[in-house]
């Protein structure tokens, strides 16, 4: 079943109740042809489970990696993804758009 943004926040709360460390990633800005609108969420647990999306699957891997670090150190992060050649060291958005993603830990 396709998860709505609402289910994602509900799942984040359920994971917390189950005693898991949880981070929330949110698309806060987009330029050009971005795959997911501003406000889209991805919730991530410390053991690498996730629900939702911030792109069409292009950058989720990197966001999950950053989220795991965020759960570990508790610091928020601002990630930016663009076309692959702009940020060669990480995955890019083949659609040519750019997105900015805010990653925060949900404190238990």
């Amino acid at each position, binding site marked *: 079943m396709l998860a709505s943004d609402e289910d994602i926040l509900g799942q984040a709360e359920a994971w917390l109740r189950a005693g898991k460390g949880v981070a929330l990633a949110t698309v806060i800005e987009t330029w050009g042809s971005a795959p997911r609108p*501003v406000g889209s969420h991805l919730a991530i647990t410390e053991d690498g489970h996730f629900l939702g999306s911030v792109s069409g699957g292009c950058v989720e891997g990197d966001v999950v990696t950053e989220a795991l670090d965020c759960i570990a150190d508790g610091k928020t992060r601002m990630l930016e993804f663009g076309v692959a050649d702009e940020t060669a060291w990480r995955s890019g958005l083949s659609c040519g758009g750019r997105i900015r993603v805010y990653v925060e830990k*949900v404190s238990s």
Partner: protein
Amino acid sequence: MKRALLEQLNAARQERRAAVLVTALESGDQRLVTPDMLGTDLLGDEIDAALRAGKSRLVEQEGKSFFLTVQVPPVRLVVIGAVHISQALAPMAKLAGFDMVIVDPRTAFATPERFPDVQVIAEWPETVLPPMKIDRYTAICCFTHDPKIDDPALEQALRAQCFYVGALGSRKTHAKRVERLEAKGFTPDDIARIRAPIGLDIGAVTPTEIAVSVLGEVILALRKKPLRMETPA
């Protein structure tokens, strides 16, 4: 994000209440703003605009960035009367993203065959509407012409502060309706909230055209009405 904030946001959604999570991106500070707090919040105007658009967005104030995570309940469209106009309205409302329900106690009208892709409830509005918990994110359109069916729905829609209340009928029919509602104690201000004759004046003739004019009027009410008037639940 503090766990308590996430819980409040989720609780608001489950109770069909609007809420906005404000995140100061530089500091990470967060607060939850509900429509009754718009008058006092520093970002009141920006939050008001985001609530009306129903979309999350980034805003700037005095060189600082704030992200507004906007949560508004899904908008419902409750149609009283499983009539010809409702048949035309159902697919259009679905395309426009409304959650539509049709209520009509007349079982000959309220059949799944006539309405393949929409929920149809063959009951009286006074039975169906209270458990449905109609609210300010609900639009009600009364299409039956029958006071026995339409009036109880109108009374409940006005009490529930539905963002749109419309009733089909000529000016003459509506004048009689106004008399009945006044007799029940509704004030002229309450009654003035009923759109009658229903629909935008686009010269609609056929049931389909009337459905277009009604849907246009519902969207107008949804997008233009200031949520500032919203009071705490």
